[in-house]
């Protein structure tokens, strides 16, 4: 391992919370852990980062400098849901019409060592439904999956191969396919343990076709406290705002996480707010997560099934529940329309 690469791993913080943080020794690494409340995706899209800095000067234009070079990190133990979220963020920030050079530079400094799951780590986990787990199929440099007393190591990139070569004697070649077969058997057997099933594909269909009743969003909007927690812990959510921070004559443009659940998110200087009410904001949030457009642009739904919103939403209207409600009400809505059409066809009024 390169000495300049900082090793970020699941570890216990002072009061016992599991966090992804720099660890000084292997003893501090947790190997059997419930996923952290803040995703390790925060190492590719930090809560706050300086986009550029400048010295405030009288009579001369401030000299603008790009933000400091990001630190190299090996992110160890990233769960497949978070691997999927980083893959999504890569496509979002580095694809499309504009390539986000700030994100790309930070992303290039990270190596991802995933930790596949052979059972749900939390009862909120629903990656099996949102196509992100229980093991990753792409997006990692290395993936470890516990199989009995060993770990199956999968190589996902050239960088991953370099790490394997560095590890040398620690690893034995899985020449026999038995280990892989055993891993697959463990993973297959784990599927039924994921209790929470939102049937996300069906919800995507209803919401993309505008087949959701207005009352559903009124109801969800009335329940929502607008705290923004669901989007702030979501490893897929990537909305940001910017602000200036000036200290001792040096200014910085900071970008920081934002949430579409905040009324101020869309509030314009004039006082006009295109999404003034909670139901409008709730629809915007759910639509962005679940619409087929997101799927076709980024290759997956805007949810990786990590279950963090389930853990934080005090109104119990997390994304799996929203998806379930969209599925049920969307169905009713479509059903009503179909029945109405059938009645009209039969000449009834």
């Amino acid at each position, binding site marked *: 391992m390169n000495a300049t690469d900082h090793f970020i791993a699941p570890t216990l913080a002072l009061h016992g919370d599991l966090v992804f943080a720099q660890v000084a020794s292997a003893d501090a690494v947790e190997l059997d852990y419930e996923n952290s409340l803040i995703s390790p995706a925060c190492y590719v899209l930090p809560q706050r980062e300086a986009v550029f800095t400048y010295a405030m000067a009288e009579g001369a*234009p401030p000299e603008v400098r790009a933000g400091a070079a990001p630190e190299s990190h090996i992110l160890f133990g990233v769960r497949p849901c978070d691997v999927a979220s980083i893959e999504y963020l890569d496509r979002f920030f580095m694809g499309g*019409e504009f390539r*986000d050079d700030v994100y790309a530079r930070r992303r290039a400094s990270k190596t991802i060592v995933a930790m596949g799951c052979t059972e749900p780590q939390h009862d909120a986990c629903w990656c099996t439904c949102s196509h992100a787990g229980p093991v990753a199929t792409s997006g990692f440099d290395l993936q470890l999956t516990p199989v009995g007393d060993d770990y199956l190591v999968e190589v996902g990139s050239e960088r991953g191969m370099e790490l394997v070569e560095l590890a040398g004697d620690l690893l034995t070649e899985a020449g026999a396919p038995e280990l892989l077969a055993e891993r697959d058997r463990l993973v297959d057997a784990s599927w039924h343990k994921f209790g929470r099933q939102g049937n996300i594909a069906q919800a995507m269909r209803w919401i993309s076709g505008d087949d959701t009743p207005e009352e559903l969003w009124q109801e969800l909007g009335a329940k929502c406290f607008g705290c923004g927690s669901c989007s702030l812990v979501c490893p897929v959510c990537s909305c940001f705002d910017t602000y*200036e921070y000036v200290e001792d004559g040096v200014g910085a443009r900071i970008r920081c996480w*934002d949430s*579409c659940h905040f009324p101020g*998110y869309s509030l314009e200087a*004039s006082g*006009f707010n295109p999404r003034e009410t909670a139901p409008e904001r709730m629809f915007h949030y759910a639509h962005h997560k679940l619409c087929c457009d997101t799927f076709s642009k980024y290759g997956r739904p805007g949810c990786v099934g990590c279950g963090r919103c389930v853990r934080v939403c005090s109104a119990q209207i997390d994304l799996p529940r929203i998806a379930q409600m969209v599925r049920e009400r969307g169905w009713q809505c479509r059903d009503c329309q179909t029945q109405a059409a059938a009645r009209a066809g039969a000449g009834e009024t």
Partner: protein
Amino acid sequence: MAAEHEHGLYLPRSIELVEAIEENALEKTFVFDLLDGEPMPYNAGQFMLLTVFGAGEAPFTLCSMPGEAPRVRLTVRRYPGGRVTEVLHAMEPGAHAGIRGPFGNGFPMDTLRGRDVLVVAGGIGMAPQRGLIEAILNDRDEFGTLTVFYGMANPEQMLYKDLMARWSERDDLDLRLTIDRPHPDWDGHVGLITTLFRDFEADPERLTVTIVGPPVMYPFVAKECATLGVADEDILVSLERRMACGVGKCGHCAIKGHYVCIEGPVFTLAQYREFGED
């Protein structure tokens, strides 16, 4: 394939304030020169993000005529407590700021070519359409008739008063002004901007209407256009949304997966009816 941005996607280019023209009590037009000497080509209706160092960044539509660069012109309303506009309005010539852009699509000049154009501007909605009108005047023979409806609450609020005086002299531009309520200093038309449609005759097949104004104005003007027989595809609106990036990343301007900063800010009314929310 995503384009690499030569200056860095988020790094502003330095500009210097040449002149701040007081339009009225709330609005000023700022004339900036780009200090790097590089051109900044843009289309009428595109916007840029203005950095006021130490205060923040905000999107504004360019109101200069395309081709005027490396000089850019922005008309900005001051909002009390506005973190960018308050500081901007206090700036004196010689002060420095930053600019990123241009962003967005702007008005579809190729589609407009050969057509009659009606520009409907409410209040500061004249600012983003000034460049459009000037671009048409600059290439006058390429377009059909040009009519401009410009409505404001009172005569004091009028932007570009000298320019309006010059435009009203022209016989290849039909400028029609209105104020909402009678005013001692005004002997022109009085009434909401929709009342200007009463004496307006047009061939709806040949006409494209552009609309920019306060949100409340759009549905009423759209209704007048429909009465005229103009198709929703021939009505263009420029949307204003909160933005923190201009390049489809910050999320603020998205409406049902459509990014106003990239796909807009100019949309046809037909497009807007598809996905719009207000």
